[in-house]
């Protein structure tokens, strides 16, 4: 139905609708699914995201590899104490991104979006936005359709695997998905969604995948917070009228090429980057 961002944009013009509507239309046509089935399935994922975002806020939750323990709880306590200084929306986006990553690393239930390693980005932004601006679940699910369109384009025309493209392919894609979705949720145009996605990719371009001890723990958890906050910033830039000079299709291609040119040591092999820092490998003994 559409294979790149240009065609997607044309479809939104022809049908006079949002990116999310086109993605639902595609799902109905290509997979012969009913609209209500699509909704219920996405609703299930949305509920999992919300649950994971709130799970480790008041309790410690140890990761399997032993690097993560109480990050979300600590951030929650800090915010509750009134000492936080990033503003409510960013506070929450960071909090929930930390929380979902921690749930993931401790063998809890999450939604890969687009991957398990980047699973904190979308719920980070989305749960924060819903709680701050009181959007309905229906509106959030509609926004998830928009996000999935950007993820689809990236999976189709590039890749979303850390082993192939580094963290920019995982957290970068999640961030671009969220940025585009936030624009639609906030009442922006399809064109602005695409600019937001381009901004998000461009900001995170080149980010390596360097998991300590090869585990989805450090730096994955905090990288999810940069994915979430980057999405908020990029959505706001796009809606303020700041355009990206690189069209989304080209940006996706650029991300793919940069990923391929990253050395293997910086693509999920734990042979470079933070994974090879001098003084961290003590933690490995607990894994």
């Amino acid at each position: 139905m559409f294979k790149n961002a240009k065609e997607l944009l044309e479809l939104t013009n022809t049908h006079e609708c949002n990116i999310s509507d086109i993605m639902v239309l595609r799902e109905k046509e290509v997979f012969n699914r009913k609209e209500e089935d699509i909704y219920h399935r996405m609703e299930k994922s949305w509920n999992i995201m919300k649950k994971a975002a709130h799970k480790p806020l008041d309790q410690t939750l140890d990761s399997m590899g032993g690097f993560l323990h109480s990050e979300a709880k600590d951030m929650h306590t800090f915010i509750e104490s009134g000492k936080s200084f990033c503003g409510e929306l960013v506070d929450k986006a960071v909090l929930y991104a930390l929380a979902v990553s921690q749930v993931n690393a401790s063998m809890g239930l999450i939604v890969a979006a687009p991957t398990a390693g980047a699973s904190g980005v979308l719920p980070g932004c989305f749960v924060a936005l819903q709680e701050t601006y009181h959007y309905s679940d229906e509106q959030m699910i509609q926004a998830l359709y928009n996000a999935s369109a950007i993820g689809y384009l990236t999976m189709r025309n590039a890749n979303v695997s850390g082993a192939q493209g580094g963290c920019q392919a995982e957290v970068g894609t999640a961030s671009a998905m969220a940025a585009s979705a936030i624009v639609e949720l906030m009442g922006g145009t399809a064109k602005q969604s695409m600019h937001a996605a381009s901004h998000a990719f461009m900001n995170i371009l080149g980010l390596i995948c360097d998991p300590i001890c090869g585990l989805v723990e450090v730096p994955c958890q905090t990288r999810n917070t940069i994915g979430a906050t980057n999405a908020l910033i990029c959505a706001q830039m796009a809606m303020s009228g700041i355009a990206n000079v690189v069209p989304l299709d080209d940006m996706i291609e650029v991300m793919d090429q940069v990923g391929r040119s990253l050395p293997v040591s910086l693509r999920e092999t734990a042979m470079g980057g933070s994974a090879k820092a001098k003084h961290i490998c003590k933690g490995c003994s607990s894994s």
Partner: protein
Amino acid sequence: MKEISMFDVIGPNMIGPSSSHTAGACRIAQIARRIANEKIVSVRFDLYGSFAKTYHGHGTDRALVAGMLGMNPDDERIKDSFTCASKEGLAYSFKEKHDPAFAPNTVIIHMVDQYQQTYTMRGESVGGGEVMINSINGVEVNLSGEYDTLVVKQHDAPGVIARLSSILANYGINIAFMKLYREDKGKVAYTIVEVDEHFDKTLFEELRKDRAIISVSYIPRLEWD
């Protein structure tokens, strides 16, 4: 090219931390369990490549045992699968192995059923929770688990395939892929049939009546939802 659904992007719903090391491992073991027709009482997992190096931190071990118990990749009991295995009388063990010939996330699963019959299956996790089964009981195959699959063990004799496909046709089942493998000429052969429709139980009974057919295993397609 396989079309990408919005649920391939936002999904699968899964137990973390890794789609390849956790969800994929669970699915490989789910398939292995279905190859045996009887209750499995003990299992050994030989882990290769990245599976061997990082299985503990990724919960690959727990996911494999969970899959062997029939749990789906989104089952919250996966983390406690070792306890569940003890309750259900499944003994399990893991071995770290090395063989550069195998893909990075490969596992060989050795199973023993309650009648001491043994089964072996080799599978690899290919990313995003998707898997490929490379070998069943020593016979090289290529199975994704995305179709309903019949694994037929038969005597290598003329006419078996014709009878098999005519039974399937009688049930209105369309064959997507069909492959034939044999251990030795004139002895034992395997037919692997992947089909579009779900199977009906009476179909197996009819297949098992055939004298040339030694055993029939059914692997229902793995659904993510």
